[in-house]
């Protein structure tokens, strides 16, 4: 009997589903997102089931696994709709959360308001206790001050409590003791311990991460529990997993405890899918871009490994758990073009969003947007948007651009539209350049992978700007995050501070710490039956003495024990990586180790894509129509292809446009496109300009 795996991703506008059959068939669909996200989830499953002529119950009963990308925790944090949360911390330090190590988002603007206090000061309470950096207890925990604090939080009816004491990453005794007291006095409350959420040095980062976990935890836990119950009621007997910010999936029990790991649950799917597709397409080093209506997400994949960071801020709060490194700028199809006080043309960061949306949506918006420019220039066909499900109003697009930009600047409507696309492309190229250079990479060494509805309209130009030779627009690009959910492996990341000079490193301590982390990781993955096939990656965050930022250096060996020769090689790798990222190294300088990270991947049964044999190069069977398209002020009559009809092996010289459901691909003059054997569009950029 065939069974199904479902990847379901909830986005701002659409809920996407990809259903992968055990016989290799793949189905996908989009339904509108709903305010209770689980409604959209059920609707998407029903849509697939009905397409297969199955009822929901029978389809669900043949579903082995559902992997869910959700924005429940993200939205709760971004909209500050989390639960009432308290913080218990070491006396004398309850304001560290508000101090933020003095960080402010803007150094020039004194009028910048503070972030919303997700734990206001009256709910941040200090208790008498102190542990030093070696783990020695200097002041024993004062149980009565603890009880007072807990009772005070109880009287304020908090639903969640974060506990974060100084040096708990060395010695968690006091935090554990406080947690016991909390459970005794408030048995129902959600508890987050910093020594469990992020047992790492740096109190602000640890506190903020733990507080965020406490703030959104009860919501995601409740959501997943009710979704799971409903699925069970409807005949689902398989497993429900959640996509995490680290690009791996996890059981709902774990995700409920570690809500902070689900903050990038949505976009992580797309990055994961990119690495997967990159392997088949043969491009291991990728810059992935996801251009939606309001935001533009950039991430870097090197050698099929997505880049991970611990330096994320979300909703103005610091979350220091390892997450996929996704850089977001305010640029998308809905970005509004406007003339500023100095008479300069600006595009974004303000967006028309989905309502009223671009002028051409005809929903009352009259500000010209990037999508309006795309329509005016002929990149987007008003009648083929979303497969014709929504007809755009080209006149409104033209009027908005002409009246608000053209007349102001004394430019023709076409030149105004070209100026808008030039500027948005440049903003995006600069974002990509900054993201890569900041890490010591050269964008020219990468292939650009464009996903999301608007990405492939602009990707060709951005590649030219950046000197990138190839752009991939993957098959299933419009439901790419859901695809990634469907493919992703299970993954847990464990971290632990082990602060020592490399010269003084004790191999026994190192091995036993990694061993403990591995056991803990396996324990976290034990509550599932999908796989017992684990892959281990051990990473050591190191730096030269005196530096502030660490370099995560993977230990190449995956053998049982780390030996002194492994460490010798690790140190060599550190110098090399340091030079690569920071442009200098110093082999005589002392090195210190800060944090150990262990990534345990539970390998799921691999879903192999079947290569489709190449057909002829000739692509004329795919021709749909032609139209005037403005790549510059002079229009070119451009052939338009129906993406559905194109076959592996087909070749199309630019300029050309490929339209398929949910996305439009623009092949600029001088570029060409070939369909590979997995139905991905591979665009070669001839006129790459180095910048």
């Amino acid at each position: 009997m065939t069974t199904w795996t479902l990847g379901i991703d909830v986005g701002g506008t659409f809920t996407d589903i990809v259903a992968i059959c055990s016989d290799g068939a793949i189905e996908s669909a989009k339904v509108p997102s709903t305010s209770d996200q689980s409604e959209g989830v059920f609707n998407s499953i029903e849509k697939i089931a009905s397409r297969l002529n199955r009822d929901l119950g029978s389809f669900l009963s043949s579903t082995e696994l559902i992997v869910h990308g959700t924005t429940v925790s993200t939205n709760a944090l971004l909209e500050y709709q989390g639960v009432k949360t308290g913080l218990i911390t070491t006396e004398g330090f309850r304001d560290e959360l508000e101090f933020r190590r003095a960080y402010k988002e803007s150094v020039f603007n004194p009028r910048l308001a503070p972030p919303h206090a997700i734990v206001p000061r009256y709910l941040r309470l200090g208790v008498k206790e102190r542990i030093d950096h070696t783990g020695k207890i200097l002041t024993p925990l004062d149980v009565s001050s603890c009880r007072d604090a807990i009772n005070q939080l109880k009287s304020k009816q908090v639903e969640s409590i974060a506990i974060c004491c100084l040096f708990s990453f060395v010695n968690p005794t006091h935090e554990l003791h406080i947690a016991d007291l909390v459970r005794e006095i408030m048995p129902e409350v959600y508890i987050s311990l910093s020594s469990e959420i992020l047992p790492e040095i740096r109190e602000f980062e640890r506190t903020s991460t733990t507080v965020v976990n406490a703030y959104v935890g009860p919501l995601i836990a409740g959501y997943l529990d009710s979704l799971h119950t409903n699925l069970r009621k409807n005949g689902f007997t398989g497993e429900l997993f959640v996509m995490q910010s680290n690009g791996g999936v996890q059981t709902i029990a774990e995700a409920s405890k570690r809500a902070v790991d689900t903050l990038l649950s949505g976009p992580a799917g797309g990055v994961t899918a990119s690495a997967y597709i990159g392997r088949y397409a043969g491009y291991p080093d990728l810059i992935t871009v996801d251009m939606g209506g309001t935001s533009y997400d950039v991430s870097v994949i090197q050698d099929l490994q997505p880049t991970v960071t611990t330096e994320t801020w979300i909703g103005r709060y610091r979350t220091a758990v390892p997450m996929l490194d996704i850089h977001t700028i305010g640029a998308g199809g809905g970005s509004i073009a406007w003339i500023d006080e100095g008479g300069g043309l600006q595009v974004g960061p303000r967006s028309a969003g989905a309502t009223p949306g671009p002028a051409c949506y005809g929903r009352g918006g009259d500000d010209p947007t990037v999508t309006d420019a795309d329509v005016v220039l002929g990149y987007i066909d008003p009648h083929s948007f979303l497969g014709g499900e929504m007809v755009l109003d080209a006149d409104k697009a033209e009027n908005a651009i002409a009246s608000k930009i053209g007349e102001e600047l004394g430019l023709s409507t076409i030149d105004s539209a070209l100026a808008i696309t030039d500027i948005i492309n440049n903003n995006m190229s600069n974002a990509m350049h900054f993201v890569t250079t900041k890490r010591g990479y050269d964008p020219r060494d990468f292939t650009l992978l464009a996903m999301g509805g608007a990405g492939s309209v602009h990707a060709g130009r951005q590649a030219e700007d950046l000197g990138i030779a190839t752009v991939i627009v993957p098959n299933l690009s419009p439901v790419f995050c859901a695809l990634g959910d469907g493919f992703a492996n299970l993954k847990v990341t464990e971290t632990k501070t082990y602060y020592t000079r490399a010269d003084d490193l004790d191999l026994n301590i190192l091995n036993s710490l990694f061993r403990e982390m591995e056991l803990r990781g396996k324990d976290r993955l034990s509550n599932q039956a999908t796989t017992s096939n684990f892959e281990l990656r051990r990473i050591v965050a190191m730096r030269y003495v005196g530096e502030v930022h660490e370099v995560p250096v993977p230990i190449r060996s995956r053998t049982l024990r780390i030996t002194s020769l492994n460490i010798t090689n690790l140190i060599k790798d550190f110098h090399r990586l340091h030079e690569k990222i920071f442009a200098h190294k110093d082999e005589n300088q002392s090195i210190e180790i800060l944090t150990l990270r262990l990534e345990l991947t539970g390998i799921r049964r691999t879903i192999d894509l079947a290569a489709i044999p190449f057909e002829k190069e000739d692509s004329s069977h795919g021709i749909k129509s032609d139209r005037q398209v403005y790549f510059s002020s002079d229009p070119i009559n451009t052939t338009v292809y129906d993406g559905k009809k194109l076959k592996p092996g087909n070749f199309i010289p630019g300029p050309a446009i490929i339209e398929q459901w949910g996305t439009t691909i623009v092949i600029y003059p001088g570029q060409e496109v070939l369909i590979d054997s997995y139905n991905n569009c591979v665009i070669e950029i001839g006129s790459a300009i180095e910048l």
Partner: protein
Amino acid sequence: MTKNDIVLTRLIAGSLETIALEMSATVTRTARSPIFNEAHDFTTAIFDVTRNQSRLVAQAPGCTIQLYAIVAAVDSALKSFKHDLHPGDVIIASDPYDGGTHIPDQVILTPLFIDREPILIPAVRAHMGDVGGPVPGGYNPRARDIWQDGIIIPPLKIVEKGEKRRDIFDLIMANNRLPDWLEGDLDAMIGACKLAATRLEKVVHRYGVHVVRKSLQDAVSYTKRRMAAEIGSWKNGTFHAETYIDHDYLGNNDIPVRCTLTVQDSKLSIDFSHSAKQVDGFVNSPLANTISFVFAAIAGCIDEDIPINEGLIENISVIAPLGSIVNPTMPAPVGNCTCIPGAEIAEVVLLALEQCAPKRVGMNSHKLPLAYSNGIDTDGKRWVNLNFFGYTGGAGAAYGTDGWGLYPPLMTGVILPSIEMTEMQYPTRIHQHEYISDFMGAGFWRGAPGVETRIEYLTTSHTNVMMAGARHPTRGFCGGKDGAPNKIVLEIDRTNELEVQETVFDATMPPGGALHFWRGGGSGWGDPLERPVSKVMEDLRDGYITVEGALADYGVVVDCDQIVDEKLTNSERKRRKASH
């Protein structure tokens, strides 16, 4: 205007801004000393050059008080090497009397040549960990002349035609206490400049020199237009303001800094003529430092999206008479100028602006009491700790927001070290780091509360303290109250305590001695009697203020159940307003 005129300006300016940001990211990540990668006390910028005249065309948001100083330093470096500049040269400079601020702020720059002509110059200006001289770290309250501040570096080539000049490096390192850090930091600055030069070269090759020059001119004109529109929205007239420096660390108290600010349509002039003469202590401000603080103050008063370039400066003139505290004659010592009188210079400008652009001023909070400690750890190594926790804080209010967090954005982008990391790295224990109730300037928008910090050293320690903002705390605006005063007490042992008046030099404390800081809270904006009662009650709930503070500062009467008595509050507020 054609489409290309409009777009290319944006594109080229955008590329240069990104390059400046990339330089900044490179310096942060590659520098050795914490003052770079943790305190972010540096700035990166790009200049264009026409006939040996440089002009600021792009700058990354970094330490705002380095803003103008970098302009002056690049000019003086170009002047020095007029006909002797070559591709691959890298110049270092730090001379307070030739485009500098205080000696620790050093500039590195490298010219990009196209067709044998320097076209663009990426530059980094940064606060170095040590600069030789009598005192580690470069703050010497006993300095009586500039040579006692540190080692002056006139413009020098440290890299010549791509080759590192070992002799120059050796000279600099030989006069420095932290040569390893310093060389690492200089390498990071040089690396960032080289990276930028490579990127800039590609921009020029892509668009051509002519187009790049024209686009940058357009970008500067654009900022100038925005700036003119901003100044044009301020009230025309002449406005006077004065403030006082606590002392010059030599017993001279209450030293005036005065400014006369004139707004005439879109032009602004700022005249410091009636300020004090230069003083014997190290609180003199060389011209570039004075202008930097003027612009740091103004940069906080304008829209954030105005690109920072020379256009910002063109409509503003600054008059600072030679021989005064804001433009001393050589060899007056200037070591503390980036704190004092920098803070007072910015403050007095804001106090004048308050009268013509009240909604623009705020965040007056730079009066830092510095306290550096050093000692020998159990492993025999010397440690130097800047005690950042003790004196960061005191963010003032601005129109639209209470002061919040710790350090305010007007002056710098400092990031505090972590307490845990500090205790791992130094023989120290931090016992407290927390807001103090009722210890800020009240206002319609209030300042951030002051911060109490207690730092114990576990070995014998030696400390220098330079008090500031104790006699004259930061000033409030538009009826907002002044900030709270700073205070530092050395808890030498169980029986001995010493409250620092002006300064202590090399104060020795046995193991267990502690520094106890009360960093004053920020100043307020607007009348505290107008502050909504609900906000006062929130502050009370959160312990930022007490019941007594609610009454004393805001006229809000609260009963013993912490419930506001509206009737009494109304009459109390009315009574006080009448007696204004």
